[in-house]
């Protein structure tokens, strides 16, 4: 027993350390993603061009499928495979367009990363403070470890992007099923 206790302690320490390292990986992943977008934002001629330039990179770093699934809610199960793929594509385009529109070339926000908080196994919240054009915002990123860290939600001043779209897409689903959701996404992307 006496030899097992130190061993158990070492194992727990190692687990804590690996957990902390994994969380640190999430923060690094987030920093790299935001830096890459800011780098492109400085060079892009328009918001549309920025959206096109960052989409391939964001598709590897953001869990768009997870976000779409959660934004649609329980209705997701009633989508066919083709409809699910369409929904992910349309929702990805909408999120990237919305995200890209917030950047102005040459105007870099000052972002302070405040570490990460583990919420569930393989999930962390990364709170940040963003100062842009003299105003300060609390921006928190939800990240999940799948085949690497993926951003799965962003909250600005406590307002979750996914929750916000859930309230809208869930209503669209209840009014006309998957077709209604796809039509609503298509229409919003075209405006």
């Amino acid at each position, binding site marked *: 027993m006496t030899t097992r206790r130190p061993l158990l302690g070492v194992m727990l320490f190692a687990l804590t350390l690996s957990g902390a390292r994994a969380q640190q990986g999430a923060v690094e992943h987030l920093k790299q993603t935001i830096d890459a977008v800011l780098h492109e934002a400085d060079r892009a001629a328009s918001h549309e061009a920025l959206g096109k330039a960052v989409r391939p990179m964001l598709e590897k770093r953001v869990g768009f499928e997870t976000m779409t699934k959660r934004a649609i809610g329980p209705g997701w199960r009633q989508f066919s495979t083709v409809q699910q793929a369409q929904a992910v594509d349309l929702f990805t385009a909408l999120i990237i367009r919305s995200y890209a529109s917030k950047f102005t070339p040459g105007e870099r926000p000052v972002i302070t990363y405040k570490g990460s908080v583990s919420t569930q196994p393989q999930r962390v919240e990364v709170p940040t403070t963003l100062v842009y054009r003299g105003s300060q915002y609390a921006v928190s990123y939800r990240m999940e470890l799948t085949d690497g860290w993926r951003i799965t939600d962003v909250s600005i001043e406590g307002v979750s992007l*996914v929750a916000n779209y859930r309230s809208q897409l869930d209503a669209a689903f209840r009014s006309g099923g998957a077709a209604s959701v796809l039509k609503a996404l298509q229409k919003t992307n075209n405006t």
Partner: protein
Amino acid sequence: MNKPHLLTLLFLAAFSPLLAAAPPAKPADDGERDEYAESTVIADPLERVNRATFWFNDKVYRFLFEPISKVYTTVLPKVVRRGIDNAYENAKYPVRLVGSVMQGKLDLAARQSGKFLLNSTVGIGGLLKPSQKVDWTKDLPAEDMGQALAKWGVGHGFYFVIPVMGPSSGRELVGMGVDYAANPVNWLWIIGSGAEDWAWIPPVGNTVASLPEGLSRYKDSTKDAIDPYTSVRSTFVQNRRSATER
């Protein structure tokens, strides 16, 4: 028996204990906890009226407030506008103090007082914010009576869209009333001084100064929305919950 007054019914409905707390999140189909299921829920029995008011407000913001905001931001340099914003924020100290005390956040109340003293003296009447240079008074959250009511377990009640002012609820309406009375900017107006003695200038100035930020938040919530009305309602509910949980 006398017919219950409509306002009484609205008041009772707005503060029904049944609406006091959101139900726990339901599990999703795949067994994963669906934490988004109830995160934006609020009773909206007046939705048709609210949507009409929302439409009206949208036009007011677009065709009246945006031009005023544009003139304000064009005429006054950024540094002057920043000073005006700081002064109005500093003047709202009683609102933050009452909000903090009512929530039992006495340490925060003390820090809010320190911030007010520092900004009012070293910060030349609140035009500057030296409080941001001191850890003890830096980045203090804005506290209000709506948060205190939520802490006491009062539910939102009904969702309202107030003409011109925008989204609110039974609980937040009461909170706003207390905050309005606690804000020194409105005191001259409240005690009955009329337009002839310029009592209207501080509150109107406060409204104009807050337009750029307020309109920017409104645009953020409605731009790229599938249904702007639902998006603003969701933003309101989430924002108030986040303020309460802070």
